[in-house]
């Protein structure tokens, strides 16, 4: 398999398959990951081909899943854990924050924690409560974790490869509403580093920075802005911890304006960190304050209100206009 068009979910599936094939220590664990292939079919067919010893249906207990994954990692395994939905990661939060994140430091580097935690996240699929959240800031604030999110199939494939190879725990946020979006995956292309941002398209008037599901919206916004003669640069950040501030800085030094977009609530969200740091780095370059577009300080609403809650094309364009108006 070289270059081909794959849905994002399938790209992850292929990446997991590759990892299972390449490294006998790689395990898949989670609720319903076996015969069902996960509720989004991301692990479809893997148990059939690699057996119940490698692709493990676990009890319904997220703390138990992550806690035993830590133990398996101590034994030399490389577990890839699935949390069924964003809203169900919290029972495992203690194990992630107090154990998984700190084990390497606590052991003075003696213990490595090559654990990947896959979390389908974000809204836009009309789901019930707890199935549409974007809790990435709650992980990025925690030292010892790395936090990433792909926006397209190629990144999904390669970032998963890199996450599994990483000796640090990686929280891998999968943009669930993009699972079915197809794009090109070249399984032989050598990718760049896992935590490097990507310039999706160059522009000169303003920078839009996003990750995961919002990259597509930003690209659309850039296109709409272009029709009005505004040249917008779009960055796919790809990593929320670390954040590739250098790439953002380079862009902002050029465009002098930055809008950060994410689904997560704006308040204490990743946009805050980016705004604070980029303002510090580019204080004399910025023509406007860094603006943020994201969720409101409110629980994710019922599905029939999610279009109002989610930052869509118009809200991004509104921020673009407001920034350019400074």
């Amino acid at each position: 398999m070289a270059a081909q068009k794959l849905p994002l979910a399938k790209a992850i599936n292929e990446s997991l398959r590759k990892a299972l094939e390449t490294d006998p220590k790689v395990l898949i664990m989670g609720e319903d990951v076996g015969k069902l292939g996960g509720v989004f079919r991301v692990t479809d067919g893997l148990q059939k081909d690699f057996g119940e010893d490698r692709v493990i249906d676990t009890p319904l207990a997220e703390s138990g899943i992550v806690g035993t994954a830590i133990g398996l990692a101590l034994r030399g395994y490389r577990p890839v854990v699935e949390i069924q939905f964003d809203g169900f990661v919290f029972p495992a939060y203690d194990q992630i924050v107090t154990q998984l994140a700190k084990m390497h430091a606590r052991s003075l580097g003696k213990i490595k924690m090559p654990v990947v935690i896959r979390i389908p996240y974000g809204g836009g699929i009309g789901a019930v409560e707890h199935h549409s959240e974007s809790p990435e800031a709650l992980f990025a604030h925690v030292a010892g974790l790395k936090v990433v999110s792909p926006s397209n199939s190629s990144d999904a494939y390669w970032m998963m490869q890199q996450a599994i190879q990483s000796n640090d725990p990686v929280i891998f946020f999968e943009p669930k509403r993009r699972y079915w979006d197809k794009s090109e995956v070249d399984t032989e292309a050598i990718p760049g580093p896992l935590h490097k941002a990507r310039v999706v398209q160059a522009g000169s008037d303003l920078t839009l920075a996003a990750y995961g599901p919002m990259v597509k919206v930003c690209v659309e916004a850039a296109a709409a802005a272009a029709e009005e003669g505004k040249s917008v640069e779009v960055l796919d950040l790809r990593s929320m911890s670390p954040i590739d501030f250098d790439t953002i800085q380079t862009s902002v030094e050029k465009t002098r304006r930055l809008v950060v977009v994410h689904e997560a609530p704006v308040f204490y969200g990743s946009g805050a960190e980016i705004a604070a740091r980029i303002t510090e780095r580019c204080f004399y370059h910025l023509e406007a304050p860094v603006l943020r577009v994201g969720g409101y300080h409110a629980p994710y609403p019922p599905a029939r209100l999610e279009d109002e809650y989610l930052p869509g094309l118009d809200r991004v364009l509104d921020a673009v206009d407001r920034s350019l108006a400074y």
Partner: protein
Amino acid sequence: MTVESTAARKPRRSSTKRVSAKKPQPETGTDPELVQLLTPDGVRVEHPDYAIDLSADELRALYRDMVLTRRFDAEATALQRQGELGLWASLLGQEAAQIGSARALRDDDYVFPTYREHGVAWCRGVDPTNLLGMFRGVNHGGWDPTTNNFHLYTIVIGSQTLHATGYAMGVAKDGADSAVIAYFGDGASSQGDVAEAFTFGAVYNAPVVFFCQNNQWAISEPTEKQMRVPLYQRAQGYGFPGVRVDGNDVLACLAVTRWALERARRGEGPTLVEAFTYRMGAHTTSDDPTKYRADEEREAWVAKDPILRVRAYLEKEGLADEAYFAGLEDESETLGKRVREAVRAMPQPDQLAIFENVYADGHALVDEERAQFLAYQASFTEGSASEEGN
């Protein structure tokens, strides 16, 4: 597929060779552990510990509850297929467990459901259409829990068992003799929260009944993935009794739950009731059970249908006639129609609902964001107005 290079070693035990755990799921009917008062064939049997004596009216009422619940459930499934609901979690097959246990409750008892307790809701007097709001996506819970002492559906598995236990601790503090019932599933039994609820319930001797509907599946996972021995046995190790009841036998569910509630009222603390039943449908309308379970399994359970056995009994004993069944059929259809119409008539929620009720006492940021939202929305009206003016 690469194979691990363990060939050189001589394992004394490989994970595949390990002694298999005792199968957790004995068959119904012949199982001495299982409390049963009405066989799948509709034959009344007695149990030494759980007697029950119901009038014809009461029996018919239970039957009616189950039939209407099933009808409502089928309507909701249909509404999901028609795009009126985003999702539906069917209770098909679990009517007896729900109606039996719920009809054991007093009005002042409090119920903590998961997300599948439509039959319990029915018995509590919650209007079925109110249950549909969250599945339609217009709210996260469309009823006032305090009106019917029926808490909101809880989706994060197991959490509500702790709420129930805390509520029961409060009941005890108040010196009331009400009881509390917490519903949860076989899968939920693995969650730490449920174990903590057992501990708190035991330590504070709280008047709570932990009612597990073991429908043998947690989405695609059979109970073997959650436990090694039948769940009801777990209670003993926490210091309170556990009972397994035929969950497809409405009489047994009623009798055992009554007994457990009475224990709670008498100040004897928690009880675990495991209602052994079967999820006859998919996990939800999003699920595809053909991926993980054989049709035959389902077929076997059709023979144990909780409604058919009561009907058989009613007919055999002459407790209900054709007219009764026909009348109930009509009532079912009326209910279905009412639900269908009510759902279709549900208004799109107001956009500002996003900002409502985030806090009880308000929050400056919510106010600010609401104002920004309004201004933003207004900019379109103005914008489009001026465009129209072009």
